């Protein structure tokens, strides 16, 4: 983890309300891993005060990129970052996905939250494995995510406004793929409701491993404010315990966070 003033290489609107931000810092790019995030100082001094957490979309050589959606004050300010500006970035933070030795990897993302899966797609083993990317979209504009993926990854997408019969939810895409004997790992990024549905679909394939990225409002991003609490139950411990999404997460095993077992 570093706190560095980094140079902005790009900050472009690639679809309405969606921006691609690329920054330059060799060490940060080197430490980047799928599922980790960076914590961006808006440069506004007093207000908005807190940094904004953004998952790493990709990292290559000396550069690192994120994909962000304009939702509020902070992200609106980020749209004014210009190439050549320097911004203060903390990261990479968090634990990241654990890449497993499986016959199949399913990357399942809802909306712009799918960003870390793009990075993951690039880091998966390529030989002798089936890698599939499932993207659920509210806006068709998100289709550009496909362009960020390596060629060998199979791409599937659903769309909320799809005509009757076609997949509306990302979970509508999954069932045919779940009928498999291969050892399968699921890597999921999206709302918790989506995780629950996915886990439901996998019910009878209990040896599937499911990793999920948990979204929490972040203060520090480094583990000191305890603002990002997640309740987990890690066997053999009986009692649930409180851990931090920014350090012990944001990636968790679904069984660990799904305490009620629903």
């Amino acid at each position, binding site marked *: *983890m570093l*706190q560095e003033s980094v140079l902005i290489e790009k900050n472009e609107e690639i679809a309405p309300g969606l921006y691609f931000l690329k920054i330059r810092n060799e060490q940060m790019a080197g430490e980047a891993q799928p599922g980790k995030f960076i914590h961006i*100082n808006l440069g506004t001094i007093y207000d908005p*005060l807190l940094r904004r957490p953004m998952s790493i979309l990709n990292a290559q050589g000396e550069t690192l990129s994120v994909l962000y959606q304009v939702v509020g004050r902070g992200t609106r300010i980020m749209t004014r970052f210009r190439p050549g500006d320097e911004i203060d970035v903390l990261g990479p933070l968090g634990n990241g996905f654990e890449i497993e030795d499986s016959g199949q990897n399913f990357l399942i993302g809802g909306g712009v939250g799918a960003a870390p899966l793009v990075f993951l797609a690039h880091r998966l083993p390529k030989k002798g494995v089936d890698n599939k990317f499932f993207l659920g979209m509210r806006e068709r504009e998100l289709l550009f995510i496909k362009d960020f993926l390596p060629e060998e990854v199979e791409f599937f997408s659903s769309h909320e406004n799809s005509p009757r019969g076609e997949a509306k939810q990302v979970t509508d895409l999954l069932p045919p793929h779940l009928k498999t004997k291969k050892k399968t790992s699921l890597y999921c990024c999206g709302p918790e409701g989506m995780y629950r549905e996915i886990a439901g679909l996998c019910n009878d394939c209990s040896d599937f491993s499911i990793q999920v990225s948990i979204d929490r409002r972040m*203060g*520090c991003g480094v583990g000191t404010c305890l603002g990002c*609490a997640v*309740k987990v139950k890690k066997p053999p411990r009986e009692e649930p315990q409180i851990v931090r999404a920014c350090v012990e997460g944001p990636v968790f095993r679904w069984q660990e966070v799904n305490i009620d077992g629903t």
Partner: protein
Amino acid sequence: MEPKIQSRIGSLELNNPLLTASGTYGNGREYSNYIDLHCWGGLVTKGLTLESRSGNSGIRIVETAAGILNSIGLQNPGIEYFIKEELPFLEKLKIPVIVNIAGRRIRDYEELARRLDPFSTVSALEVNVSCPNVREGGLAFGTNPGLVYEITARLREITTKPLIIKLTPNVADVGEIAIQAEKAGADAVSLINTLMGMEIDVERQKPMLGNIVGGLSGPAVKPVALRMIYQVYRQIKIPIIGMGGITKGEDAVAFLLAGARAIALGTVNFVNPKAPLEIKNYLLDYMRRHNFSSLEEMVGLAHRERED
């Protein structure tokens, strides 16, 4: 000559006046990899209770205008774990460690003090009296001058370590309470803890925080903190540890001029972990520019008779 920025809180000597504010720096471990913790005059640890606490559920941190609301709910692993797992780490650091303690009843505080007393790594105790006190009907201990006197006096009997009483700003007259802490034998007071506030999610028509209300900190509260320190400085003789919204060198200097002998950085750590380094540099530079040779000369200077 380099200005002297050493400071003193009771018998506790600090290399510089910068402390971490309780609850905003863990126990230092998280930052230790990429900042030299020796830039701090001392570390104030996260609020410690007898038993472990899992804290509040729901959203715990909400951003407000130039500030944040938090309702962590004193999540901490309890004193046993602290002594076994955290103290050894802190011991190795060789930086003064001030342990912040909290309880629901006076005897919780007593028990905490008793158990921490034997450890030389614990340089001082900071007593958080801002937690709701069940016996007295939910209002914080810290709003009741008599109770603050009582807690302080009892702890004074238990420990010879410097005792710092951390006061809540949610009162009409913080001076009255500081006076009681001093009378009962406190070595210093810390102020301010957070201001009670809340935020509402208008689309969901519900309070934002899981705990409904939370504590406001950050730049938004700085004027309130500064006013309380300025006011209390005229009412007590023991040192004041000032905090509340400090983010830059000018703020730190303002707190010293108002009367604080040491200052703590809280929320700013979340935004700019390099803040202690930047603030220390500013302070040294400021002292050179204004020909101060020691911190002593600056503390409380804003109280001078005003010539203009």
